[in-house]
């Protein structure tokens, strides 16, 4: 690369090592090198690997832990910072919503020891419920932001973030995105710098946010904003590439690489941060070119900043506010802005793509829960997790899905509205329940509503790849720890009707949910089976379909199991089904729904699938 990395003094020449790292690994490495002592996170794609790779560093160096939710993660980090050690939290963009309560106050308090929060946005919504732009949160909370463009910068900026945090007494957010988090590129790594504990700063006026103290802090925050902006002007992070002066491109983060790909000769100002802006640098750059274009993913944060500064600029007039950028998107924007000529469209090889939506895994215990619900004609309030996939056909068993923990609260609201004639069932995963399901459950008990809560306990945080949580009995580092027991927890809230059922026992599950629905008041059913993928891949003896018995009714196909596919055999005009033995993990659900007894355990040695 053509630039020198920031913080060069950390790299003694004789110890340069280059590793291929994902953006998330680089962020974790950066925090570790910066001497972080406490790190906490709640998993969420695309941020999950940050804490997972943090756990690869020795426990005596960094206390890495899963938190029950993002607010808890931030509070843990704040506590460590109060205690005088460098602290770190990581989350995905929507996690900031949960954490923001703490974050918006902590920004008034500042950071005694370095406090850095890594946030991974998900432009393009690969695996989220929205594509909110975290930069707006930074502006809202006056929290300085750093935006690396590649894995090297991810490491460097994270290290630097701790310096900025301590220098300016502020929490700092390092913002990544799906593309950066999951792109692997070579990274020059350094060593860990042990930082001495600063001890607790006995200063109630600074640390205790009561109105009188907060009123004093707010002006300092405003002042801090301009000081950090000035700092961004001074340090060599904003990268100015002088080129063609007709057009100057201001960009930030991963978008920079697309701009370079499409327009290698332009004048480019690649900012390190969208907030606070390096106003002087920007002014200089804008003065050096005839026309200024801001190329930024999602919201026009920089563009509006420039307009406030009185700089004539264009951006979102040509570039979309939605979706993930790519070289093609940048090219189209620059073409419509008249910066580059339209290329004659290449004769691309077009094929109508096959729809391959993600589905619940073969043997996923959630499948039976939703098969059971499907039969009950219930109004199902969904939540965040793999099970959200049950909303699409063929299960089509979820009516709403808002945010982590919303299901139960939504059910309470619908019950209070009193207009829904169908039974109300909130479905929520184990990890999600711990994350944000408990307060609304307490609310449901407190406000005496008639709802059923189905806790889908698969003993892991499956959607993000199988992370532990408070009810798995294991820590981030895989050590045994205390375990929350759902039935006891739920009873303690005052729920009178609690039953635990094996998720693979479809009939009992169906029956139990039906009984729960008939119960007047809050009823909780715990559907209990481990995830088939994590923490260990479960693989039982596969099932097979006796073709001669199959009547192609498609009952099993309603499971949407990836192991079930059509064959070329026809019964009464319908296609018969077969089981792909390597994919089948032997959960028996298809056999349980087959009305013709055509699905049997594969006899050993008879498999021809």
């Amino acid at each position, binding site marked *: 690369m053509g630039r020198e990395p920031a913080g060069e003094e950390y790299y003694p020449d004789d110890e340069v090592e280059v590793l291929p790292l994902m953006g998330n690994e680089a962020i974790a490495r950066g925090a570790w090198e910066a001497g972080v002592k406490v790190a906490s996170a709640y998993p969420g794609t695309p941020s999950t690997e940050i804490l997972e790779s943090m756990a690869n560093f020795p426990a005596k160096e960094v206390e890495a832990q899963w938190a029950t939710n993002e607010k808890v993660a931030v509070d843990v980090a704040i506590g460590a910072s109060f205690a005088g050690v460098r602290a770190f939290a990581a989350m995905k963009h929507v996690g900031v919503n949960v954490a923001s309560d703490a974050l918006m106050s902590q920004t008034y308090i500042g950071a005694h020891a370095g406090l850095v929060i890594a946030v991974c946005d998900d432009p393009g919504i690969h695996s989220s419920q929205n594509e909110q732009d975290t930069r707006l949160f930074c502006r809202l909370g006056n929290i300085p932001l750093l935006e690396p463009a590649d894995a090297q910068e991810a490491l460097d900026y994270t290290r630097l973030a701790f310096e900025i945090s301590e220098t300016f007494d502020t929490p700092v957010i390092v913002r990544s995105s799906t593309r950066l988090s999951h792109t692997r590129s070579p990274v020059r790594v350094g060593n860990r710098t042990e930082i001495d504990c600063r001890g607790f700063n006995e200063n109630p006026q600074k640390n205790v946010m009561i109105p009188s103290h907060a009123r004093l802090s707010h002006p300092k925050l405003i002042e801090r904003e301009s000081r950090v902006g000035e700092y961004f002007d001074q340090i060599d992070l904003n990268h100015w590439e002088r080129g063609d002066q007709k057009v100057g491109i201001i960009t930030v983060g991963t978008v920079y690489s697309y701009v370079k790909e499409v327009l290698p000769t332009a004048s480019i100002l690649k900012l390190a941060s969208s907030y606070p802006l390096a106003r002087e640098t920007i002014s200089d750059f804008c003065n050096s070119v005839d026309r200024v274009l801001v190329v930024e993913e999602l919201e026009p944060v920089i563009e509006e900043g420039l307009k406030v500064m009185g700089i004539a600029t264009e951006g979102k007039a040509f570039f979309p506010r939605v979706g993930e950028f790519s070289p093609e998107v940048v090219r189209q924007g620059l073409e419509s802005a008249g910066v580059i000529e339209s290329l004659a469209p290449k004769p691309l090889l077009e094929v109508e793509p096959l729809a391959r939506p993600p589905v619940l895994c073969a043997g996923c215990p959630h499948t039976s829960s939703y098969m059971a619900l499907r039969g009950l004609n219930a109004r199902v309030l969904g939540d965040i997790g793999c099970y959200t996939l049950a909303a699409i056909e063929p299960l089509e068993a979820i009516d709403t899905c808002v945010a982590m923990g919303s299901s139960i609260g939504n059910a309470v609201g619908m019950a209070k509205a009193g207009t829904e004639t169908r039974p109300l069932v909130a479905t929520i995963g184990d990890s999600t329940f711990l994350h944000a399901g408990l307060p609304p459950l307490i609310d449901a008990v407190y406000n005496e509503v008639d709802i059923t809560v189905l806790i889908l306990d698969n003993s892991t945080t499956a959607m993000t790849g199988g992370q532990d949580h408070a009810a798995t009995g294991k820590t981030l580092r895989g050590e045994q720890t205390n375990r929350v027991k759902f039935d006891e927890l739920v009873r303690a809230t005052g729920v009178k009707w609690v039953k635990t059922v*094996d998720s*693979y026992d479809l009939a*009992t599950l169906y*029956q139990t949910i039906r009984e729960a629905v008939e119960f007047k008041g809050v009823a909780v059913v715990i559907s209990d089976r481990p995830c088939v993928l994590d923490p260990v891949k479960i693989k*039982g003896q596969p099932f097979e379909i006796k073709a001669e*018995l199959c009547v192609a009714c498609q009952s099993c196909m309603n499971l949407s199991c990836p192991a079930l596919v059509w064959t070329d055999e026809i019964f009464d005009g319908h296609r018969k089904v077969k089981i792909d033995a390597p994919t089948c993990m032997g959960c028996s659900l298809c056999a349980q729904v087959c009305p013709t*007894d055509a699905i049997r355990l594969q006899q050993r040695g008879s498999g021809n699938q």
Partner: protein
Amino acid sequence: MVETGKTTQEFEIRDYLRTELMPHFMCPGCGHGIALRALLWAIHDLGIAKDNLAVVSGIGCSGRTAAYIDANTIHTTHGRPLSFATGLKLARPDLHVVVITGDGDSLAIGGNHLIHACRRNLDITCVLLNNEVYGMTGGQVSPTTSAGRYTTTTPAGNHEPVFDACELATAAGASFVGREITMHVTALRDLFVQGLKHSGFSFIEVISDCTEIYGRKNELGNSPEMVMSHKADIRPESYGNVVDEPFRPTDLNVGVLSQTDRPEYYTAYRQHFGKQVEGNDDPKKGGAVT
């Protein structure tokens, strides 16, 4: 691409019913109706003429099903249909004789007749509709009522051990023993086909449901739920070691549970006295089986 598993001629159940008696008198969701369909379907598939079919039933809800079949039907006394059937079959080896009985009918009052019918191995197909209760008389305990279940005569839950009808029949010498659940209607049909084709005494237990009386009293859910729970109750080995932990351990098997090649009673009787059975050794061939 091949079209498989379909009968050549469409089965239309009305062709086999006394439609003037419909709707039948069974309660909503009673599994006996499903079993009846499977039986008639099998009879259709085998090409057995209604004129050559005799259905003998006992007393109880199961006994009432026979009347709806457009065949030679005999609704006999409590527990005794097998005795009537024995006489009928010996008198008329050309008829296909099917007995429909219930759990109380065949295992309690008719237990003696059942075991001896099994022992003799006369070519009769005996269908036991097992709904675990005396439904007709208002829901009293039967020899197959599951442990702990409530009936009008087990107010504190059933404390008696139960019969496994199929094991009983096998031990008594029935040369064909099978079991199915109503939800497996096509499998049940196939089991009936096999049982009807079998030369000798075939015993087929159908796990049926009594929703209105037994189900309600024991909170077993409504009909679809009862039908589905039968599905979950059966054939542990079919569900294997559901990834290392069986989800519901039972020992109820379905399908053909035992089949032996013992001499058929009537054929053996004739041969014993040095006579050939009219037409052919195989009494089945006297009928219209194709």
